[in-house]
């Protein structure tokens, strides 16, 4: 079969701070009509740049050099002028982006956004709009037309993006990490939708993702990219069953190690009774409205045993993070929390401070959780300066050196700044910052969701090692069942502020009781 799009020897270099970066190295691939090609690679491997180059969305300037060609319908897209390009973009080749929150214009309603890509004659074609929305599985499409992006959920927005992309029956749809920002259950739905549309319209799909798991079912062929180079290109089955390149093998086997050891003692470290978290809906200054609260966490009670890991799973908005922040008093809450049989929920900040060194938190985004203006040394040793004021400077430096080796980094990195580190290294630094206080309980709020697959399993490894070595207790919050499965002893499934199911790990995975748990398990890619 003739190929629809051919990329030959695509090479892209740009200059950044007087350093030449070779973002794409002599890559070639073909997409046939109706085929789904997946490009898989870690962040920074040049996947997105490739897609943007095909669409010519990269503004060329003196610092940027593109060579090679992209052949579509016997023409080289890289050499077309802008007026011809417009006829192809959005009509023959369209694209959906990673972040549905920012890729829709917040000031236009849905109808306006969708009709924008119609031909002029069809600009006021409302029924076509509604059909498109139905096609992508949006309920009540008639009502939705007048809605604005902020009124839609992430999954719905991504559906609207897809509706816009398929409005002109494109030959090729480029999906750049279409599900990364979405919850697991929705991720599954969106991928199914893309697959369905591809088959119905005989459209080709170029799926770009870092998650090898999701391409297994949907794609025909897979390109594995590493540092701008396509290291392996083959049928999906072959790639998964007989990977050639060592990097592909590493990607496929990057499943995290599972927790094997178990703690014998059964001392309760944390017990929570009737915990509720409220958020004020409207902050009116003069008129106090009653009942204008949003209850994020609803009367939860649970216990954690020392040395165990409690995994909390749920979609975004289910109140997982609110629990975490309530436990360490970053948000105010009701109910009582007992840490080692001492009620800590009524303590004020001054009295709670000594407890802070026992309960630490690690946040989701390692890029946001380290102050960009402090050195790693300052970041890690900050807790010591609060809780161990009597320690001398030398002791503090020795301790930080010790801890940074514990988390698998080198102490020569101490004088550097966070921006000089990769996501995985930053997360290690964040772990070091929490660990240096010798906490007994660490709350991990989605610590791996901003990281690449291979890095994720390294972090999980590290967490398991540390737990074993220091007898730590974890509360591990995630929407990723794969990681939860690897780490936890008990799992708490949450939905809209309630506990849906709270069970031993084995029971949850083998015999889920609740409907919602079943759905979660079904949509997870293991």
């Amino acid at each position, binding site marked *: 079969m003739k190929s629809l799009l051919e990329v030959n020897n695509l090479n892209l270099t740009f200059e950044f701070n007087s350093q030449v970066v070779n973002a794409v190295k002599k890559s070639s691939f073909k997409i046939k009509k109706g085929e789904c090609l997946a490009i898989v690679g870690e962040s920074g491997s040049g996947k997105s740049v490739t897609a943007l180059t095909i669409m010519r969305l990269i503004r060329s300037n003196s610092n940027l050099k593109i060579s090679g060609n992209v052949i579509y319908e016997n023409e080289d897209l890289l050499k077309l002028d802008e007026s011809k390009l417009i006829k192809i973009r959005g009509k023959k080749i369209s694209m959906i982006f990673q972040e549905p929150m920012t890729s829709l214009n917040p000031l236009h309603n849905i109808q306006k956004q969708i009709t924008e890509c119609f031909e002029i004659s069809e600009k006021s074609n409302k029924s076509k709009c509604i059909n498109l929305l139905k096609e992508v599985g949006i309920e009540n499409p008639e009502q939705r037309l007048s809605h604005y992006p902020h009124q839609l959920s992430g999954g719905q927005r991504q559906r609207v993006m897809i509706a816009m992309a398929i409005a002109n029956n494109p030959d090729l749809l480029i999906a750049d990490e279409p599900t990364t920002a979405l919850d697991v259950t929705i991720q599954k739905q969106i991928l199914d939708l893309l697959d369905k549309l591809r088959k119905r319209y005989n459209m080709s799909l170029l799926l770009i993702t870092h998650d090898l798991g999701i391409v297994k079912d949907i794609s025909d062929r897979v390109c594995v990219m590493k540092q701008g180079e396509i290291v392996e290109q083959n049928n999906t089955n072959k790639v998964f069953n007989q990977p050639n390149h060592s990097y592909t093998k590493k990607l496929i086997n990057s499943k995290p190690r599972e927790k094997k050891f178990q703690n014998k003692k059964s001392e309760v470290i944390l017990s929570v009774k009737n915990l509720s978290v409220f958020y004020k809906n409207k902050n009116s200054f003069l008129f106090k409205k009653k009942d204008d609260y949003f209850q994020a966490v609803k009367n939860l009670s649970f216990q954690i045993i020392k040395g165990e890991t409690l995994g909390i799973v749920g979609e975004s908005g289910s109140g997982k993070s609110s629990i975490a922040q309530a436990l360490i008093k970053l948000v105010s809450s009701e109910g009582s929390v007992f840490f080692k049989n001492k009620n800590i929920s009524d303590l004020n900040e001054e009295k709670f401070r000594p407890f802070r060194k026992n309960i630490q*938190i690690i946040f989701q985004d390692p890029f946001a959780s380290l102050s960009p203006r402090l050195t790693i040394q300052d970041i890690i040793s900050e807790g010591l300066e609060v809780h161990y004021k009597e320690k001398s400077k030398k002791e503090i430096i020795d301790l930080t050196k010790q801890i940074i080796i514990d988390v698998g980094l080198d102490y020569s990195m101490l004088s550097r700044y966070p921006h000089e580190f990769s996501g995985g290294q930053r997360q290690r630094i964040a772990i070091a910052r929490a660990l240096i206080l010798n906490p007994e309980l660490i709350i991990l709020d989605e610590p791996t969701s901003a990281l690449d697959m291979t890095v994720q399993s390294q972090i999980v490894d590290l967490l398991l090692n540390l737990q074993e070595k220091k007898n730590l207790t974890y509360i591990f919050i995630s929407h990723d069942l794969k990681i939860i499965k690897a780490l936890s002893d008990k799992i708490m499934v949450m939905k809209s502020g309630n506990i849906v199911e709270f069970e031993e790990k084995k029971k949850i995975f083998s015999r889920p009781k609740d409907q919602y748990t079943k759905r979660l398990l079904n949509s997870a890619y293991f």
Partner: protein
Amino acid sequence: MTFSPLTIRRLKNFRSNKRGYYSTLIFCVLFFISIFAEFIANDKPIFVFFEQKIHFPVFEKISETFYGGEFETEADYKDPYVRDLINKKGFFIMPPIEYSYDTINYDLRVPSPSPPTLENLLGTDDQGRDVLARLIYGFRISVFFGLTLTILSSIIGILAGGVQGFYGGRIDLFGQRFIEIWSGLPVLYLLIIISSFIEPSFWILLFIMLLFSWMSLEGVVRAEFLRARNFEYVKAAKALGVKNMKLMFKHVLPNAMVATLTLMPFILSGSIATLTSLDFLGFGLPPGSPSLGEMVSQGKANLQAPWLGLSAFITLSLQLSLLVFIGEAVRDAFDPRKVI
């Protein structure tokens, strides 16, 4: 003295901005010269050796009778009679420019304002005072004024903005309303009214302008604090048990620093420009004091004497541009993402 790696990095960044770096050098030289204005442009000698003793007339008042003259008043060293008296029993060294900012040259051959001559390099103003001497003193006073005002208003602005932004809620609400009202007051009219019943000295002017100039920074700092207080690293520090005060200064403020530093050169040049315009209007520093604004107004009144307007214009524009260039370099230096 040892520097932390951070300081070294900042210095490197600063130096890599060539324009800012050279501006700093030039400005430092100019400012250094103007600090010692008394030894450069003065109608008194730097050094008098009289009757085997050393005197510094810049620091002490020496009456004419001391040198053997007739008047009890301070000796007029420009007077040939006094010069002769000193030369009889010693010697003296005059500064390179033999005029202070308020010395009137009575020996002009043409009516003042007189054009540049070898005696008065940039000519004299309409009262026969040396323009170059007045420029040197005027430069010094306006830089002092600008720097003091900028530093003081930055301190107040950062504190107020920081407290408002960090605590938010009611403090922020009342603070904002107060600022809205306060910024509605017409500063220039207020200054004009005040200067009509008290003679505004350097410090009074500074105080009045300080009352209003802190607000320009306050808004930016408040916004940065509002944004940063919800950052994860601030939360992480809070979870470590760091106290509010330390949180504000260690975690939030450094990140508000770029915004602050971006604005600072403009506050600095703005306050110099305000002082100049007040002087220009005649509501600024007391009459007779060396001020660039007053010279601009003289230039306007004496268009036939272009050396007045031109010297004032060149000095002012040089001063303001240098300050803005330095400000840009400082901002670059504090930018953590800047790669050299």
